[in-house]
C-alpha cells in the first residue's frame, strides 16, 4: 500500500481508513511544521512582534548605531562614541573587546559609597579634544576607592529578562542558606529599593534605567533624565569644552533604544545533529544539575503578563537566578548597592558560545578557565567540576556549547 501526503494538496491515496488517518496526521504535522515560526537568528528581533513593534525595533537600532560627536553631545568625558561601538560581537547587541574601569568605596559591611559626588562608579576612560586641550585626558579613580574591570555584556534576550517578575527572582533567594546546600543568594537592590537585576552586581532594576544611564555615563550624552554632564571626579566640566546644548538627546531616544534592546531576541540554542555530540551534551546537562551549577545558573524563568505578545508569559532560558552570590576572595573587587565586594550576580549563560572572553572582567580565556576561578558559594561545584574525569568534563563543556 502506498500512502502519500502533501501540504499543498492534502491528497491521499489508498483505501484503508487507517492509511487515511495516518496520512491526515502526517499532513497536519507537516502543515503545523510549516507554520512554526522560525527561531530568530542572533541579532534579530523577537518572533511575534507586530509591524509597529518591528518598526520600533528598527528605529531603536538607528539610535543604537548613532555615532556621537562633541557637536551632537559626545563627552566631554566618555567611554565610547556609540552603543554599537562596544556591543558589536559577533553582531550588533553583542559583546565587545572594551574593558571598563568602575570604582566605589566600601566603608563597612552593608555600606557602599558609589561615589556619586565624585563622578560616579563608571570611570570614563576617554575625553574629547576640547577637554584634552586643557589637559584632562580621562577621569581618575578617586583616592581610597576600590576599582574593578568590566567587560561589555551581550544584550540578547534582555527584554525577556526585564519582564521576569520581581517575585520570581525573590523566590530563589536563600540568604541564610536554610537548605544547607552552601549557596545563599540574595537580591541586590537599586538605591531606591527596587529589586535589581541588570549589571554585573545587579544594582539596576530595569532595562530602561540601564539605557537611560548608559547615554550619560558611557557616551557623555545628557538626557532629560540626566540633564547635566557627568562631572570630572566631582568637578563640573568647563562649559567651553561642552558645545552641545543640554539635554543632548530627547527622552524619545532612550525609549527607542529601550525598544531595540527589549525586542532583541535571545540567542538561539545550538542543537547538535550528530549523535555523539548530542549524547555528550545531554550527559553534560545532567552533570550541570548534579554539580549544582543549576542552583545559581537557573536554566529557565518565565516573564509576567505583558501587553506585548512577544514578551507575555514567555519562557527565557537565561541560566541565571539574577541574585548576587559570594564568589570568593580571588574575584573580589568593588561593592555596589547592597552587593559586597565579593558578591556578583550570577552571570547569564545564554549566548555563552558566542563569547570569546569570560567572567565579569573578560579575564578568562576559556569557559573551563572561568569555571576554575569560581570560589565562595561556587567552590564546591568548582571542585566537583575539577574532579570530573576527562569524558565527563568534556560532556559538561559540550552542554555549555549548546547555550
Amino acid at each position: 500500500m502506498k500512502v502519500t501526503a502533501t501540504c499543498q494538496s492534502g491528497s491521499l491515496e489508498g483505501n484503508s481508513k487507517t492509511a487515511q488517518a495516518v496520512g491526515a496526521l502526517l499532513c497536519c504535522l507537516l502543515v503545523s511544521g510549516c507554520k512554526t515560526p522560525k527561531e530568530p537568528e542572533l541579532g534579530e528581533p523577537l518572533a511575534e512582534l507586530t509591524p509597529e513593534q518591528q518598526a520600533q525595533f528598527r528605529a531603536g537600532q538607528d539610535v543604537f548605531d548613532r555615532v556621537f560627536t562633541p557637536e551632537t553631545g559626545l563627552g566631554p568625558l566618555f567611554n565610547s562614541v556609540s552603543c554599537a561601538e562596544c556591543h558589536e560581537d559577533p553582531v550588533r547587541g553583542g559583546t565587545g573587546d572594551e574593558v571598563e574601569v568602575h570604582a566605589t568605596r566600601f566603608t563597612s559591611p552593608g555600606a557602599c559609597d558609589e561615589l556619586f559626588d565624585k563622578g560616579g562608579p563608571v570611570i570614563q576612560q576617554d575625553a574629547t579634544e576640547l577637554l584634552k586641550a586643557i589637559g584632562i585626558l580621562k577621569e581618575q579613580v578617586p583616592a581610597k576607592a576600590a576599582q574593578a574591570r568590566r567587560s561589555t555584556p551581550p544584550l540578547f534576550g534582555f527584554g525577556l529578562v526585564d519582564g521576569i517578575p520581581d517575585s520570581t527572582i525573590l523566590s530563589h533567594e536563600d540568604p541564610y542558606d536554610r537548605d544547607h546546600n552552601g549557596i545563599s543568594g540574595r537580591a541586590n537592590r537599586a538605591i531606591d529599593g527596587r529589586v535589581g537585576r541588570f549589571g554585573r552586581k545587579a544594582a539596576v532594576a530595569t532595562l530602561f534605567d540601564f539605557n537611560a544611564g548608559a547615554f550619560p555615563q558611557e557616551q557623555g550624552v545628557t538626557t532629560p533624565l540626566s540633564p547635566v554632564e557627568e562631572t570630572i571626579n566631582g568637578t563640573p566640566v568647563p562649559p567651553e569644552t561642552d558645545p552641545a546644548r543640554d539635554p543632548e538627546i530627547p527622552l524619545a531616544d532612550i525609549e527607542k533604544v529601550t525598544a531595540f534592546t527589549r525586542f532583541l531576541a535571545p540567542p538561539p540554542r545550538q542543537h547538535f545533529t550528530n549523535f555523539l555530540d548530542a549524547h555528550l551534551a545531554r550527559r553534560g546537562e545532567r552533570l550541570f544539575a548534579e554539580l549544582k551549577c543549576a542552583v545559581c545558573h537557573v536554566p529557565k524563568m518565565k516573564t509576567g503578563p505583558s501587553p506585548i505578545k512577544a514578551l507575555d508569559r514567555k519562557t527565557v532560558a537565561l541560566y541565571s537566578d539574577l541574585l548576587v552570590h559570594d564568589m570568593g576572595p580571588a574575584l573580589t573587587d568593588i561593592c555596589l548597592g547592597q552587593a559586597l565586594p565579593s558578591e556578583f550576580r550570577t552571570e547569564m549563560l545564554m549566548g555563552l558560545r558566542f563569547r570569546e572572553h569570560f567572567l565579569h572582567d573578560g579575564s578568562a580565556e576559556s569557559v573551563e578557565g572561568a569555571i576554575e576561578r569560581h570560589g565562595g558559594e561556587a567552590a564546591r561545584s568548582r571542585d566537583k567540576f575539577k574532579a570530573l574525569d576527562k569524558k565527563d568534563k568534556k560532556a559538561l563543556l559540550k552542554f555549555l556549547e549548546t547555550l
Partner: protein
Amino acid sequence: MKNLTSLIAVLAIAALTVSAALSEIEQMKADLIGHTMGGREKTWKFQSTDQIKQLVIKSRVEDGRRQVCLLALQLQATNATERYAAEAKVEYWRTPTGWKVDHVGLLSLKKME
C-alpha cells in the same frame, strides 16, 4: 481688644501661608510618584511619598505652557538606612486638565553621611 484681634489675624494668615506651602510640597511629592530620574546605578524612581524625606522648592519659572521647578530633596528607600541628597529639575506641561509632570531630571546626587 483691638490688639488681640490683630494678633489673631496675623496668626491666622501665618497659619494659612504655612498650610498652603505645606500642601504645595505635598502636592509636588504626589506629582513625582511614578516618575524616574537619572539612570543606571544613579536612578531614582519615585514610588511613594514616604521616600521623600525632605523637599524644598528652590525656584520656579513659569510661562504659559511650561513650568520648571528646581528641587532639593532628601530621599530614602523603604527599609533602607542610606539617605541621599539630590537636586532635581521638574518640568511640568500645561494640559487641558491642569499641570502635569513631563519628566524629572537628576542634577546631582550624594550619599549623606
